[in-house]
């Protein structure tokens, strides 16, 4: 029984945390800026490699390099908005969606040029798993869960209690009315990109530290992140977290039923099922 937890549930929750952090960004962009952001996976990859760069250049340990990477990725996300997406704001949203696909490729290519295409790691050496009454947890797994918990709690508190958090929710809920209340659209958009970039970096970093760094990792994980966002209800932060955990667990548990190469198809099946059966998602999000 405990093996079941060690081999499936723990990895599922760790993967789910990575998806959750990515899905929150996707759901915020969907809710507030109203488009599907297909550069999101590659933004996460870039964040992960920026952390790697910080360890190499500044001699930081990976977990200290993470905040540096989060700040840099937040600035990068805002920069991409300023340079590209902002100019498409008044055009049909599908143009921004297509542009984001291109931005994703561009980011991935830059990462490949700078760091090469071979898998990399934050550090060598094998981290020993510690036993908690038979439950085996590695320090990086505990740290991943703690980080996810802390970021989600901070974001939810910000959205619930702060003036600008409420402005973000208002913008997601009813943009015309938010404007009538005097909420500045541009400021909310800027804030959204900073938050999204921060979370994307955290997501990519956790993905990299729990497996290895590859230039395709964010792109590959993005389908699962979108599935998580839709499953939880588009625009719903708490939904994205639950959705991420469900998709992560479902992927890990799917190998009990189907051969492991089909693992990544699990998210796709769940995405299709939720779109057909309950398009508003678990938490009653926007219907796409």
């Amino acid at each position, binding site marked *: 029984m405990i093996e079941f937890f060690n081999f499936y549930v723990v990895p599922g929750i760790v993967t789910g945390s990575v998806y959750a952090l990515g899905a929150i960004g996707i759901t915020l962009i969907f809710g507030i800026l109203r488009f599907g952001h297909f550069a999101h996976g590659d933004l996460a990859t870039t964040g992960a490699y920026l952390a790697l760069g910080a360890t190499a250049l500044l001699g930081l340990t990976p977990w200290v390099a993470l905040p540096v990477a989060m700040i840099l990725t937040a600035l990068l996300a805002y920069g991409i908005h300023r340079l590209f997406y902002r100019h498409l704001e008044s055009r049909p949203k599908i143009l921004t969606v297509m542009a984001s696909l291109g931005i994703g490729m561009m980011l991935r290519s830059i990462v490949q040029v700078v760091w090469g295409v071979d898998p990399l790691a934050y550090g060598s050496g094998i981290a020993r798993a510690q036993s908690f009454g038979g439950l085996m947890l590695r320090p990086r797994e505990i740290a991943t869960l703690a980080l996810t918990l802390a970021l989600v709690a901070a974001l939810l508190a910000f959205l619930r209690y702060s*003036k600008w958090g*409420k*402005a973000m*929710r*208002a913008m*997601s*809920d*009813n943009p*015309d*009315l*938010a*404007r*009538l*209340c*005097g*909420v*500045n659209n541009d400021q909310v958009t800027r804030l959204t990109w900073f938050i999204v970039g921060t979370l994307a970096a955290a997501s990519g970093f956790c993905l990299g530290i729990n497996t290895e760094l590859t230039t395709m990792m964010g792109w590959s994980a993005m389908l699962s992140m979108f599935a998580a966002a839709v499953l939880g209800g588009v625009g719903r932060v708490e939904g994205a977290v639950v959705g991420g955990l469900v998709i992560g667990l479902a992927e890990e548990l799917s190998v009990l039923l189907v051969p492991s190469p089909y693992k990544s198809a699990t998210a796709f099946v769940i995405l299709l099922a939720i779109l057909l059966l309950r398009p508003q998602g678990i938490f009653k999000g926007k219907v796409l």
Partner: protein
Amino acid sequence: MNATAARDRPQPILIMHQVRGGYGDADILQGVSLTVMPQEIVVIVGPNGAGKSTAMKAVFGLVRIRSGAIVFEGEDITGWSPDRIVRRGISYVPQVDNVFREMTVHENLEMGAFLSKGDLSAAFDRIYALFPDLKAKRHALAGDLSGGQRQMVAMGRALMLDPKLLLLDEPTAGLSPKYMQQIFQICRDVRDLGVSILLVEQHAKQALAFCDRGYVLATGANRHEGSGRELLDDPEIAQMFLGG
């Protein structure tokens, strides 16, 4: 008229003078003029497509104005942006989608005071005194309320910044007669607090009966104006919109 009398006469809080404009190239407004006096409820009625809502939106800076002027408390506000107009003391309640459905009643009111930096407790007390129903429901999501209660949330939100003029676009649309009378009564209470109200109404008969003064618009221009009573008694108007 001697000078003293002119000075003593109350000045209109809002003047719309010969406003022409619309959204695209076509002008929906073909020269609309109206005034609102302090502490007055003024209603705009007219057939569908007369430009009633557009006239109101023009006051709030939501319409491209080609010519004419809008003067608020002696200051020309023609062409101002909505957020600047909010700061100047005019609030607007749209006809539809006028609440944040996923936010609580209390948060909706808070958003109404987004531009305020000060303490809001006095504003909340004022609004909850005006809408006791909302106080009981303040932690409910606005989207879960009935249509009439939602309209109260929308009006409460608009009153948070203590405006001098409130613009209401068809506040009783889709409401039961009971709620319609309640909304009208709230309008009177709001006026008695010193706020002028300009509203657009589909229910012409009831609205003219309760307002101080009314304007009848047709095809984007003034057709008639007068006290509510005069307009109700005018046979031509009765035939035009009020069903004879």
